[in-house]
């Protein structure tokens, strides 16, 4: 997708900037400090460092899944869809009800009694995820129709405010007693968590037993999140690059009037974009809930915000950008939590964002600014 610039910058060759060395010195100093922090800690305790990296990866891959929705929607309608994080929350809640109220994940066992246990769990879990994705898609499309579409001709900010309104509404309507209730609900996972540790090969951690010193632990959820996130990336790349609707999406994001002239149904493309983003947010919500196993109605605010920052960092509108940005955010957070202090993590994340934007004004993968015709 294409980032269309709103701020033209001159391309005329002017004389070399003076005093540039001061700024460069500053950047180098900051970079050296960061490098020193990372490397010194890596040398001090490489195992602990690896453990932080693993948790950063888990966080990063979840962010990546949410960031996709932000980046695609922004790429097409230039709207920061603040309600996206709440779609993510609804995804988590739908799966919660499916699993603990309706035992949906058990259906293969009831339908095919002879089925092997492993296969039943896999099919059951996938059904739950699909259900969440479908509900999220329906919700996102409704939101788009009701709240955003009528404002497509209005100033951009009006749509942004409605996005905030929708977000508030979902959070506090969801918190009513007869909807999701305001409680922090422990989440029943559709499958068991298995953890391993790495030390002289991979060993499984049994219940109540501590892994030996100097070992790196990880769980099956980590693997699932990584696989799902990568799969989603490839799927999206394929969707956007090689399918008809993907081409329509790119055309719409590039130039709406021209796309319409080419016979593309712009409204349907936009709805479709919202739907795809919501589907991945729903999937992300399920995986997030499974990983951290506690849900409440404001669960989506912060992951949503972080994912958006990640999308900006990677270059908003760019799909690989969202992916890379999310991974960087995940690492920055985990390492800050590990080596500086948890409260400073947002400060570090935003500092990285600002510095990256100063060096590359459209983010890491953002297409360079182009003059508005």
């Amino acid at each position: 997708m294409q980032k269309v610039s709103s701020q033209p910058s001159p391309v005329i060759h002017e004389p070399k900037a003076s005093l540039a060395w001061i700024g460069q010195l500053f950047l180098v100093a900051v970079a050296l400090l960061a490098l020193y922090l990372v490397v010194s800690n890596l040398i001090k305790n490489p195992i602990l460092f690896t453990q932080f990296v693993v948790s950063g990866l888990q966080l990063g891959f979840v962010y990546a899944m949410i960031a996709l929705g932000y980046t695609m929607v922004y790429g097409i309608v230039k709207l920061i869809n603040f309600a996206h994080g709440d779609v993510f929350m609804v995804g988590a809640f739908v799966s919660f009800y499916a699993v603990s109220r309706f035992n949906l994940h058990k259906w293969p066992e009831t339908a095919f009694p002879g089925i092997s246990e492993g296969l039943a769990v896999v099919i059951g879990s996938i059904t739950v995820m699909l259900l969440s994705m479908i509900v999220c898609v329906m919700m996102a499309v409704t939101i788009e129709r009701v709240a955003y579409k009528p404002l497509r001709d209005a100033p951009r900010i009006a749509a942004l405010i409605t996005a905030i309104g929708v977000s508030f509404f979902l959070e506090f309507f969801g918190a009513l007693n007869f909807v999701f209730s305001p409680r922090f609900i422990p989440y029943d996972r559709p499958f068991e968590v298995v953890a391993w540790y790495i030390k002289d090969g991979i060993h499984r951690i049994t219940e109540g037993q501590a892994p030996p010193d100097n070992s790196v632990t990880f769980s099956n959820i980590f693997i699932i999140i990584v696989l799902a996130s990568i799969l989603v990336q490839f799927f999206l790349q394929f969707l956007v690059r090689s399918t008809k609707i993907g081409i329509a999406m790119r055309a719409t994001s590039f130039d709406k009037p021209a796309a319409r002239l080419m016979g593309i149904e712009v409204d349907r493309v936009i709805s479709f974009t919202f739907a795809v983003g919501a589907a991945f947010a729903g999937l992300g919500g399920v995986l997030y809930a499974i990983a951290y196993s506690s849900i409440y109605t404001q669960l989506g605010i912060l992951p949503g915000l972080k994912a958006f920052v990640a999308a900006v960092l990677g270059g908003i509108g760019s799909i690989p950008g969202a992916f890379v940005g999310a991974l960087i955010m995940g690492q920055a957070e985990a390492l800050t939590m590990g080596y500086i202090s948890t409260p400073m993590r947002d400060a570090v994340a935003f500092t990285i964002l600002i510095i990256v934007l100063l060096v590359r004004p459209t983010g890491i993968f953002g297409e360079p600014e182009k003059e508005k015709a």
Partner: protein
Amino acid sequence: MEIGFLLISIIKIVAIIAYLYGLFWAMGHSSKWVKIGGVVLGFAIIQAALSVPIGGSTILNNFDSGLLFQACTMAMVALGLNLIYGFNGQFSLGQWGFYGIGAYTAADITFRWVNGDASGLFVVGIGVILGGIVIWLVGGFLRKYRRVPVLSSFTLYLVGSIIAGAVALFIGKSIAQGLVGMLGTAASPGPLNSPIAMQIVFFLAIVFAGIFAAEISFLFGLPVLSLGSDYFGIATLGFTIVVNVLMVNSDTILPFPEMKGGRGMIGIPKLTTWFWAFLFLLAVIVIMRNIIRSSHGRAILSVREDETAARAMGIDIASTKLFAFVLGSLFAGLGGAVYAHYIGFLSPGTFTFLVGFNPMIIVVFGGLGSMTGTVAASFGWIFFLEGLLRVLLSQMGTEAPTWRFVLYPIALLLLMLLRPQGLLGNIEWGFLKVALVKRTELAQEASETAASG
């Protein structure tokens, strides 16, 4: 009787809007005497309603006066944001951070003063003055060079400000040392702790806090304003979040044990009266209106309309943006300072980024680039959400108050869908009618998106 309250809260919203209309009309009158009389009368009406008891109770009770003060501070913050976003076109979510900086700075000054420590006032006072001088000097130095990269000038300003701060800390502490006897302690106040001295300190605290917020916004805005519009928005959102983190850790990361971090700062003298709130709100309105009318104002507007054309006209885009941003943050800082001394207690929970969307909502409610709209929306919003909705829902049983933040977003959605250009759109009242300026951005953007969407 209960329904009477509901009716009264509706009437209050209408009355306050009518009051604003009258005030702006009087201020816009050509006769000097009507102007002065109008302002004095405008002050006196509310002052009387607040303090003169009729039949045992005043017309405006504490509940109303609380809403009134909150509306005044919100109006200052929102006006600042309207200058940055509505008039200058820079999508900023950092206003709430500057509001918090102003609140904490002013609160710390007066808190220390009543507890017999003058260092707050002198360190901040000397700091903002030295900071101003440094900024002026560095600016002069940088003008000798062409095309200095923004990061370089930022580094220079940053180093200069840190030095200025260190010097101010040293001088301020030593001056304060000499005043300890004059101030006395909280238990036995000295001569400088008299009510009149307190009012002067309070005034200085507000002004210094505002300038301090403005200088921080200068340092922050310098690099960040060079980013594109939405990138700028997300960076300023980051600013609000980081300021909040620092507030939470003000007693651990920052060296201010009296702020008590997440526990909240208690014991701030409640000095805000209607006089101060009215004075500062009026000052913000007059300053902003006059700046918009001046050539600076036209530069600010032209940057919003078309940066390329503005550049062609010889307008320095970067410094115009910075000017609007710093001025807007100054207003936010003033608003924060007034707020801190109204509520007498500061907690980081007030300054989270989610609450920080409120000024943006108000500015859009009132209409971008409409000062009247912003002021009216600030009052209307508080009196609706905290006044009317509260009164209405608490009478509908014990379950209903949970619906307050369900109804509020619905109202928000409906309003945006019905009037995307804001409640008052283009309308300006009396004094605030600004000639020569057409608000074409909305129309232009609308036609652009209409063509493409």
